[in-house]
Structure formats: C-alpha cells, structure tokens
C-alpha cells in the first residue's frame, strides 16, 4: 500500500515535492489508507483539471447530511482555496473540511445552515456570470479571484454579507482541518501534521516538551483513549453482564 503511494507521489512534477518537515508528514500519511485514496485527488486539483472525477469518488463514500451535492462541490473548492493542497503538502481538501462542515450544520452549527445555502448559491452564480463557469470548475487562480471578491464584499447575495460569510467559512474550514478527527475533518491527521502538532497525549513529560515539534506524532483521536470512551462502555457492559470478552 505505502510503496504504491510513494510511487504515486514521485510522479508529481518536481516543484510539487513537499519541503522539509511536511515531507515527513506526507510520507507518514501515505502509509494510511485514506490519504492513499485522496492523494490523487489533490494532485488533480493542483493540476487544475477541476478534479471532478476524484471528487465524485470521495462523495460516494461520504454521506451528505445537510448540504446538497452542488453546495458541497462549491464549498469543497472554497475550502481548498483557503487551506490549499499545494507544494507544501495536503490541505483542507485532504482533511475533508467540507465533510466536517456538513456534519456540523446538522448539529452544533445548525443555525448557520441558511447562510451557507444562500451564500454558496450566490458565489456560484457570481462565478458563472463573471468567469463563465461554475465555481468548482474554475481554475485555481480564478477561484481565488472570486473568493477575494467574496471577502471584499463584492459578491451580491451573500448572507449576512460577503465578508461575514467569508470569515465564518474560514473559521469552519480551520475547525474542520485542525479538529479532532472524530468530527469528520482532519482526516488522517493532515491538519495536525501540517503545523507539527505532535498529537493528543494523556500526559506530557519534560522530555516530551523538550522534544516539542520533533516529538513523533501519535495520530490519535481523544476518543482513541480508553479514558474517554471504551473504558466507560466496557464498564457499563460489565455491569449489565454482557461483556462477552471478559
């Protein structure tokens, strides 16, 4: 699996080679199933082919709880502009920030659903009108140009305003790229690796702190730790007399 992936990476044009520490992260991530699947999609985006085929591949494995497929396609491209997949490594696309945002709109961020609905449609309409194509089909440069117009309040119809919507999406994209993977974003820990966060530990020794960003990333969700989940369920199962493993 990993050798196949490494081969895939080595086929990238040389200017897309990851630099220094991010290379370590990419190679680490490459040993994991998810990134292996998503990696080629990122390259497609970098190659500015629109990435349509690979996006469909991902969407087939990701339920959309709230967003329509059209909204998700626009939003995924916006997330990729904010935290791009680029020569420095994977970004919000590989982290699946859009998947995080979709899930959050079904739960904690429910009240913001309408802002996404209205604004994404307005952005797509603006892209078609001024650049001739749907937002997600534009080249990366043109997408950045449209998104700058959103940030500068030049795109009509955004809710509550272009700038406010932009700031909200930026926050949510960061949340979805750097949150605990339990929430559907930061998949394969690409966000934490991006900024060299060594990961969640139940304790940090003085040696851990001294190592700092050089500490081996442990790639664990908070909910991989027994303390917060499994121990609790196992105890409950034990109390109920159903702990078959015991």
């Amino acid at each position: 699996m990993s050798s196949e992936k490494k081969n895939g990476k080595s086929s990238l044009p040389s200017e897309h080679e990851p630099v220094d520490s991010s290379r370590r992260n990419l190679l680490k991530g490459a040993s994991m199933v998810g990134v292996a699947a998503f990696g080629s999609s990122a390259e497609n985006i970098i190659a500015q082919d629109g990435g349509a085929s690979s996006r469909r591949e991902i969407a087939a494995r990701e339920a959309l709880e709230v967003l329509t497929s059209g909204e998700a396609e626009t939003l995924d491209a916006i997330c990729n502009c904010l935290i791009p997949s680029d020569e420095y490594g994977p970004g919000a696309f590989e982290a699946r920030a859009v998947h995080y945002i979709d899930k959050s709109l079904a739960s904690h961020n429910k009240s913001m659903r309408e802002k996404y609905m209205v604004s994404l449609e307005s952005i797509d309409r603006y892209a078609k009108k001024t650049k001739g194509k749907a937002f997600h089909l534009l080249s990366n440069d043109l997408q950045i140009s449209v998104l700058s117009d959103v940030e500068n309040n030049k795109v009509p119809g955004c809710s509550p305003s272009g700038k406010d919507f932009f700031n909200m999406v930026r926050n949510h994209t960061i949340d979805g790229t750097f949150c605990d993977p339990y929430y559907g974003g930061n998949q394969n820990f690409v966000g934490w690796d991006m900024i060299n966060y060594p990961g969640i530990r139940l304790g940090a020794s003085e040696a851990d702190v001294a190592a700092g960003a050089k500490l081996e990333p442990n790639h664990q969700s908070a909910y991989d730790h027994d303390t917060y989940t499994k121990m609790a369920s196992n105890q409950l199962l034990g109390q109920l007399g159903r702990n078959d493993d015991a």
Partner: protein
Amino acid sequence: MPKKLAKTDVVIVGMGAAGGVAALPLTHAGLKVVGIEAGGWLNPRDFAPDELRNGTRNWPQSVQKAASEAPTVRADSSQKAVQGGHPMMNAVGGTSMHYWAQSWRLNPWDFQVVSATKRRYGEDRIPAGSTVEDWPFGYEELEPYYEKVEFAVGISGQAGNVKGKINSAGNIFEGERQSEYPMRPLRTSPFTELMTDAAHSLEWNPFQGPAAITSELYDGRPPCQYHGFCNKGGCHVQAKSSTAFTTIPKAVDTGNLDVVTYARVTEVVTDNDGKVIGVNYLRGSEEFFQPADVVLMASYAYENVRLLQLSKSSSFPNGLSNNNDQVGRHYLSHHQGSPVIALFPDNLHNWYGLPAQGVAIDNWADDNFDHSELNFIGGANLWVHTDRKPIGAAKMSTFGRTRSWGTDWKKFIMENADKTNTAYIQKTTLPYETNYLDLDPQVKDPLGFPVTRITASYKENEKRIAQFSQDMMEKWYREAGATEIIKTGLGNVMGASTHAYGGTRMGDNKETNVVNRWGFSHEVPNLGVLGASVMGTSGARNPTLTVQALSWRTAEYLVANWQSIAG
C-alpha cells in the same frame, strides 16, 4: 403554588467556587445545608482533550444557564445594550471545573487603595468619578482564611514572604504569609525558563504563580500531567483543585450537605419582617420552595445581583436588600484584555502545558513601583504561560506578513505555529459612579425574566495602566528575543467577564455598601453574599482564591454567630 420542602438550616444558591467552599465549614459545624446548583455532576470521563467541543463549542456537557441569560452590554447610558456571550458555566464545581486555576492572594495595597494612595501621593490622586473605598479590613484579616483555603483546596506555588522572610524565588511583593504553599510550584518549561532568564537580565523579579492544581500527589489526587487541555476542559486526573473534587465531596461526606442539581433559583423569598425565609426554584417544569433559616447567595456576580433585583417584596420594593439603592453599583469587569502578542524566531515548545504553568512579573503591579511621576494609580501583573492547541494555533495572528488564507498563509502557520505567544495582563480596575448593573428593560432569559444589563466602560486610569503595562510587556518579550510585537487596543466597553466584581459591595457604610464586613446584608440580617460581587477592588490578579477565602470567613462567622443571625 411551589411545592414546599422540609426546612433546612442554610440554603446556598450555587455550588461553584464560592458556595462549594462555604459548604465545608458549615457542614463540619453540623449545620444542615442544601446547595442548589443549576448544573449537574461531571466526572473525569467528561473531560476529553477535545479542543473543538470544549473551546469552540463551549463545553456542551455543562448546563448553559449562564450562557442563556448572558448580560447585555453598553458603554454608557446613552446607548442601547446588546447581548453578547458569557464564558461562565454551570455544573457542580461551577467554573472551577474548567478555569485556569490561577490562585492568588491580593496584594495588601488592594485592601487600602484610597488611604494608601492619599498617604503616598496626596489627596488628588484618586481618579475622578471613582467610587472606590478601602476594604473594611486589611490583608492581615483575610490571611488566615487564605491559608485555610490553600490547604483545603490544594494550591501549588512558591512563597515569596513567609513571616517576613523574603524568598526571591517567589513573589517578593506579596503580603506576609504564615506558611509555605502546601505544594511546590508547577514545573517550569523551556518557554517559562526563556522568559525567566529575560526578566532576570532586566533586573526584574520573575516567579512562578500559584495554581489550584496539584504539582505532586495531594489529598489522594495525582499530580498535573501537563497534557494541554486544562483551559475549558476540566482535568482528566482531578489534578485541578475544583471544589467539585475537593471541598464539595467532603461536605457531602459529613451527611449534612444535600446538593440539588439542575435547579434554577428564581426568587429569594422574604417575610413581612424583612427577613429571608428561603428560595423558590425550578427543576424542569416543577416549582419548589426551599425554606431555610439563612440564605447564602453564591451564583456569580451577575446572578447574585440579578436575583436580588428580581426578588421584590413589600419590604423591598426595589429588590432585596436594595432600599439604599446600592445593589448593582460599584460594578467592574476586570481589565484583563488588551494583550501583547509576540513572534519568536524559534519554536517555543508550548504544545503541552497549561495556562497556570507560567511566569509572572509583579514589579509593575499594585503600588510596587513609584507612581509620583505617573498619571495613574495601580498597575498590572504580567503573565506568560504555556498552552497551545491546534485550532487556536492555526488562527494565530499573521503579524501583517500574509493575507489570512491561501498558500502563503499556510506556509506561514506551518513555520510559525509554535513561535507565537500572547501575554495575559491583569490590571487594577476601579469602580466608577457611571458603571453599574441593572435589569435590561427588553431582553429576557428563556424563563421570561429580564437579563442583567451592564453599563460600564474603562476610564483613563485603566487605559493608562494598559498602555504602560504593554510597554513593559514589549520590553520583556524583546529581551527574550521576540522579533515582532503586536499591542492590541487599550479597551473601552466593559463586557461580560469571568472576572466580574461589585454589585453587592462589602463595607461598613450601609449607604454605600450592600453587605457588612462579614458578608451579610446591611438590610437583611440572615442573607449572606458570597463571590466577587462583594469585592470593591480587583487587584491585578485572578479573584477566585480571594472569593474562596471570603466565603470561608463568612461561613465561619455564621457558625460562630448562628443564634443572632438565624434566630
């Protein structure tokens, strides 16, 4: 009609940092106490290291009562107040579950701001419009109670003055202590050592601040694990000395404390003689009346004040204990904003650690330096600490180097996520005639009661301290090698704060204070108030330990004078 329950000796409204401490001496003395708490019990399994849930989403496990009745805020009475957020939370243990746990004693100067200032600098140095008074007693009076709480709750730290003997490893400016801290200070870190060395080369006096966090095995609780999710997260090993894991369980163990959870007190009830006879509360849709001989209010500054203002009766038509029109006055939000942000050339190793693991400078706090040539009184505690989490790190300042998104930004955060630090600067904040709390005429909470309205702004004295302390902070950061510095705005409107003071101020003069020197109402003999709402000055440091020392003192006074207060 509310369902009438069996009478108890004492009702405490709120089982947080204040009420949770007062319950211990009361129950040890054999008094029957009912503690009414809006939140529920949480345990270490609820304290997952989850930045999104705890920080971004404000810890949904806690009951969001305080958030749902957040005060409205305006700078002055000409404006319309707007409702904002409120960071306090509701649970058994209250915000002591997820606070930073810095546990300071006030400086002796904070108890006598008026007399000490006049003595040293002359009559005209008290800022215009301020209603500040000396406390009715000095630091020495509270010292034994500070010590009791430090041991009962479990505080780690380095003493700087034990019985007059100065130790430069601790705070050389602190008031005289009778004993060392029960635990040594929390561990240092590469960053705190960097900043300590820089302070020494400036010939300042750096020291590790005190924390309600175990640094070693204490009272059956393990030491801090430094995992980095202390702020807004609760402690997974109970190293944080929340009242939920210290004084409250011990009070429950006496058999004399009954904690009623998920209950919202709606009114403090009085009889025709003007004494309180108990409280009404809602639990779900059921309404109860809990009779008691004594009521202690311990529901945080805003709710203490609001409950008094809402509890109107024939004896108190303007709200309970408010016939002198003092409830809601002398309010202040601690000036703890206006931070300085620094960028360093190298990684700071701050991915693990906690806000209480830091290093402090008190050289520019209180009256520790000569103000003769300055245009303000008081000062600031400068504090830098470890603590960094990924979402927060990604939202770091770009120091004007890139736009806030795209490839350049991504490269910037990849290089700099562990190179930035934000100083926490707590400043002397005074009460003013024009700063106050009342009931909002329009905005209601989900039960239909008006929320608190804050009308308050920082005045010149606070802004001058902010500017002065930012300059000192920049000096400190630069000495440590910081290459870029951002100084944020000096402050204007006083928003809803985790450090809210006043509204039921303590003092001997009943014309200007709500409670007497023991924390009991001047107008209602069997009504006591616990919390920073009784404090008339803020000092330059976190309020909780002072709140807890005052609570212990009020509780002991009640025990010693039970017949005259409850009778």
